[in-house]
């Protein structure tokens, strides 16, 4: 026997006869879905990342406190062919005539900005894209110009230097959203020559780099290994905490969709492969009888599979790329920034995954065929003895696990999804076994045709378990795609409701507080939080002065050396949740402190520890009595440290407020004029930005989810149609015995209804549980609750779908004259 030639001939014949076409089609569809969703997700992801780069002002940053970023970091970046941009930020008072304004100065070299564009407004109101400020020139925020009473074209003074105002900043990449002073952008050379960066300037330094993704990756690796103390890397992902959450959630959504598509594909291929192997049994027995050796049979089967798989996976990958190109053309306008190049990686990995899934699921049953007894040609009932445990069957599970891990790119997503699906599989197994037991006992009381249909489930016990399992897993994936995903997106959108605070007010003095509140209420401000704020230094933890070097988290150093802010309240503020200890309420005899969870971990605290703060001339030592989880994305005033009001009120303080007012509310400007000491921070721009990202990402994700859903439905229908074929012989027999169409339909519908209902209910429950787990651990939306009503409807809908698919599959068979079937099967 020449195995290759034999395999090629078998493939040709069987394909022509339609035998292998189902498996080939499942594979093409699976790889196409995977390649399309993977590529689309990857492109959307890179579009989002590119947009994040614009926010950071580069692809990667090295940030240092107090001293410039060491020179080797610049040299290494140049050696790696990366563009560099130095930025120094510091606070300073800016003068113009008699007026002065506290500002945040950003001094940049001529390479600014590496990513994104700097937009300024000229004196005539026209906007333009501007280069970095030239020596002798600055760009300033509108608030600076208003504060100084100056216009574009006039001059201001910084550190004794007289500089021309060359434009009003409209958009400058790389700024911090929550800085409480307006920005002035100046040239780095000017800042250095004016002596603004001398010792004690409290400046922070940043080196931004940008270039080829691989080079940036390489540079990040090098930089991580060479970071001196008080220096840290800032990546695109942590450019902005608020935006980062948006990006991360968007990315997780895309990965989830791609993963579910992969899973559906795997199930379809697995079902087709299983069926192919079952059909091969007779042939293998005959070949054995005619003298083919085991080795030859295994080799020929494997080769035949490979000859089928490679072209099918290639066609699938090509089809997938075409499909995603079409989808991308539609989704294009939803994405920020420039069009990302077509990535080949996802299509290539879809190809490999297709092969892995096919061989993973098809090889075990095919390899088992080598044990088929040649005597089976005489005795059809001679079943191959089933070994209780066969290591080969671990292969598909291993393939599935690796698939989930690789595609998810995150252990947490993989864990939740893997756990959820495993739970669904286990629950399906348990419920199906119970159902089969019940049918065996109680099935006899059912009417004729229905009894026959359900008896089939009992008779084909192993097949029933496989089919219900596959069906439940596919329906879970579809439920996640169709119901849980969109409702999670909806919940995410609701994260920033219409009355999200869009203004912050700082420096409200205690004697202004009542008046301020009344005025705001008069303007119709909503969602007001007004909290006291005392600023000072953290001087001791458990009586000892903290050292930056004691903590692994480099941010701890910033807080130890910089200013810390503390507030107090008798009630737990909104968007805060106590996770450890007891909230102090009004306070007791000794000062009590509630600490944010990230601080609690960063400073390695324990309940009962003490923290000493110096506020003005006073020192206060408070005991840590509770830990809070703070929703920092809520755009409300929030604090890392909250004292009890009994002790906090004695500290020198002002008030800080956050509230919502429709933008362009003129009353606010009047309030600002009448209380000249208060600072008003308008965060409408950043809110718009976050909302914009959420909108764009969720629109793109809706596309990807929808695409996966369609692919998944097709796969499921193909798989169901294939299982209908298993009923060929029974239907022919029933027909022969005189069953009419109604009776045949009742048998088929009964069988498929049981399959569909069981799988649908388990899948709905599994999808709901997985959705809750995903919301809590991956998407950090703790109060998410899946729409159970919709899931219930989907369970009913999927039962009907399964019944119809079963009916459609068997209808074709029922039209074939029974004698043909019986003769073919005999």
């Amino acid at each position: 026997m020449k195995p290759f030639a034999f395999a090629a001939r078998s493939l040709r014949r069987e394909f022509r006869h339609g035998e292998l076409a189902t498996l080939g089609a499942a594979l093409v569809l699976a790889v196409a879905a995977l390649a399309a969703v993977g590529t689309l997700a990857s492109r959307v992801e890179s579009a989002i990342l590119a947009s994040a780069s614009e926010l950071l002002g580069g692809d990667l940053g090295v940030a240092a406190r107090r001293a410039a970023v060491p020179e080797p970091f610049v040299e290494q970046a140049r050696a790696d062919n990366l563009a560099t941009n130095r930025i120094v930020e510091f606070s300073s008072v800016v003068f113009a005539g008699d007026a002065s304004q506290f500002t945040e100065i950003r001094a940049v070299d001529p390479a600014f900005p590496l990513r994104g564009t700097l937009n300024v407004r000229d004196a005539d109101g026209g906007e333009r894209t501007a280069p970095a400020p030239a020596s002798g020139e600055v760009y300033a925020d509108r608030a600076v110009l208003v504060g100084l009473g100056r216009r574009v074209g006039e001059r201001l003074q910084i550190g004794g230097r007289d500089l021309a105002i060359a434009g009003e900043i409209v958009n400058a990449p790389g700024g911090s959203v929550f800085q409480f002073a307006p920005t002035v952008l100046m040239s780095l050379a000017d800042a250095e020559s004016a002596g603004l960066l001398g010792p004690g300037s409290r400046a922070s330094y940043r080196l931004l780099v940008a270039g080829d993704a691989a080079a940036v990756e390489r540079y990040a690796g090098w930089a991580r290994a060479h970071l001196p103390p008080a220096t840290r890397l800032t990546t695109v992902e942590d450019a902005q905490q608020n935006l980062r959450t948006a990006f991360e959630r968007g990315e997780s959504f895309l990965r989830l969709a791609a993963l579910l598509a992969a899973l559906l594909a795997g199930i379809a291929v697995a079902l087709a492969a299983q069926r192919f192997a079952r059909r091969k049994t007779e042939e293998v027995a005959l070949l054995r009888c005619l003298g083919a050796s085991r080795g030859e049979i295994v080799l020929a089967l494997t080769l035949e599979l490979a000859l089928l798989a490679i072209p099918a996976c290639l066609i699938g990958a090509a089809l997938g790329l075409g499909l995603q190109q079409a989808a991308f053309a539609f989704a294009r306008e939803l994405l920020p920034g420039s069009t990302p190049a077509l990535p080949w990686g996802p299509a290539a990995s879809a190809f490999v995954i297709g092969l892995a899934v096919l061989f993973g699921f098809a090889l075990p049953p095919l390899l088992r065929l080598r044990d088929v007894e040649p005597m089976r040609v005489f005795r059809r009932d001679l079943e191959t003895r089933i070994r209780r445990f066969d290591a080969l069957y671990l292969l598909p599970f291993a393939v599935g696990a690796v698939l989930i891990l690789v595609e998810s790119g995150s252990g947490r997503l993989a864990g939740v999804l893997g756990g959820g699906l495993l739970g669904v599989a286990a629950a399906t197994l348990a419920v199906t076994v119970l159902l089969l037991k019940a049918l065996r006992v109680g099935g006899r009381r059912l009417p004729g045709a229905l009894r026959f249909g359900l008896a089939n489930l009992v008779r084909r016990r192993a097949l029933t378990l496989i089919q219900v399992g596959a069906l439940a897993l596919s329906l879970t994936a579809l439920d996640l795609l169709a119901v849980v995903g969109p409702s999670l997106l909806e919940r995410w959108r609701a994260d920033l409701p219409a009355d999200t605070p869009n203004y912050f007010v700082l420096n409200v003095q205690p004697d202004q507080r009542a008046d301020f509140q009344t005025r705001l209420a008069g303007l119709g401000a909503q969602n007001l939080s007004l909290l006291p704020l005392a600023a000072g230094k953290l001087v001791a933890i458990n009586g000892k002065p903290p050292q930056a070097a004691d903590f692994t988290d480099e941010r701890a150093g910033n807080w130890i050396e910089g200013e810390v802010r503390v507030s107090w309240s008798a009630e737990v503020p909104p968007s805060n949740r106590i996770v450890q200890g007891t909230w102090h309420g009004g306070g007791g005899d000794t000062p009590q402190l509630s600490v944010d969870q990230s601080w609690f971990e960063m400073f390695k605290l324990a309940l009962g520890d003490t923290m000493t703060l110096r506020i003005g001339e006073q020192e206060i030592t408070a005991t840590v009595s509770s830990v809070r989880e703070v929703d920092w994305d809520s755009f409300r005033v929030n604090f890392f440290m909250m004292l009890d009001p009994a002790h906090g009120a004695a500290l020198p303080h002002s008030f800080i407020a956050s509230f919502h007012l429709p933008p362009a509310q003129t009353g606010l400007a009047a309030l600002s004029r009448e209380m000249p000491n208060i600072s008003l921070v308008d965060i409408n721009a950043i809110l718009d930005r976050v909302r914009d990202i959420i909108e764009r990402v969720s629109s793109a994700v809706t596309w990807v989810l929808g695409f996966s859903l369609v692919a998944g439905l097709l796969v499921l229908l193909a798989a169901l149609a294939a299982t209908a074929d298993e009923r060929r012989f029974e239907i022919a027999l029933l027909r022969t015995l005189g069953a009419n169409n109604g009776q045949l339909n009742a048998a088929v519908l009964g069988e498929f209804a049981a399959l569909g209902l069981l799988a649908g209910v388990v899948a709905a429950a599994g999808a709901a549980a997985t959705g809750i787990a995903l919301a809590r651990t991956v998407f950090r939306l703790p109060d998410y609750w899946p729409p159970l009503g919709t899931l219930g409807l989907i369970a009913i809908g999927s039962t009907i779908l399964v019944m119809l698919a079963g009916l459609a599959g068997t209808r074709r068979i029922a039209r074939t004259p029974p004698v043909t079937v019986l003769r073919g099967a005999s």
Partner: protein
Amino acid sequence: MTIDSATVLSAQKLSKAVDGPDGRLTILDDVTLAVERGASLAIVGASGSGKTTLLGLLAGLDRPTAGAVTMAGQRLDTLDEEARARLRRRLVGFVFQSFHLLPALSAEENVMLPLELEGRDDARQRAQAVLGDVGLAKRLHHYPHQLSGGEQQRVALARAFVHGPELLFADEPTGNLDQRTGAAVTDLLFALNREHATTLVLVTHDPKLAARCARTVHMRDGRLAEAAA
């Protein structure tokens, strides 16, 4: 019993037992038998008497619980499954009651199968020639479901003889056919047997078919009782 050079197939003290739900069940009990080259032997008996089990053991498709089978001078019990497969490929042809044609293959391709297993390049020509011999030259490209029962069994006969086997095992070759078609297929079987000088071992419960063999043995409850030829 001695084995002379004329004996192509022999069984010595052959037994087969299987473990069933009610304990051990003996299907074949102490069967000794020799078949001479070119002879034709019919194994007859009631359903469940052990005919098919004996055929399977003689053809090397199964292993006996006790005793030995010798085929063309080779003790089958000394060979592993792979070696027995090679021996079958070279020496043995089969005809089954239910034809066992592969539904995905055309008549011609089904007949090519044994030659392809041997890796022969003239498979197609040989298959066409033999299909011509059985009167199916015009049915080369038909699939099993497009052929009548008699035609299907003729394809099976062609497949059994195409590689010139020394031994032909037939299990109820006319069991699925009507009387007239069965008779035609029987004629063809014996004609081919004569032409190819093949040794024929045939299992049947049809006395007319058995009568066409030179020798008949009866199986009863797993034991052999020779009848007069």
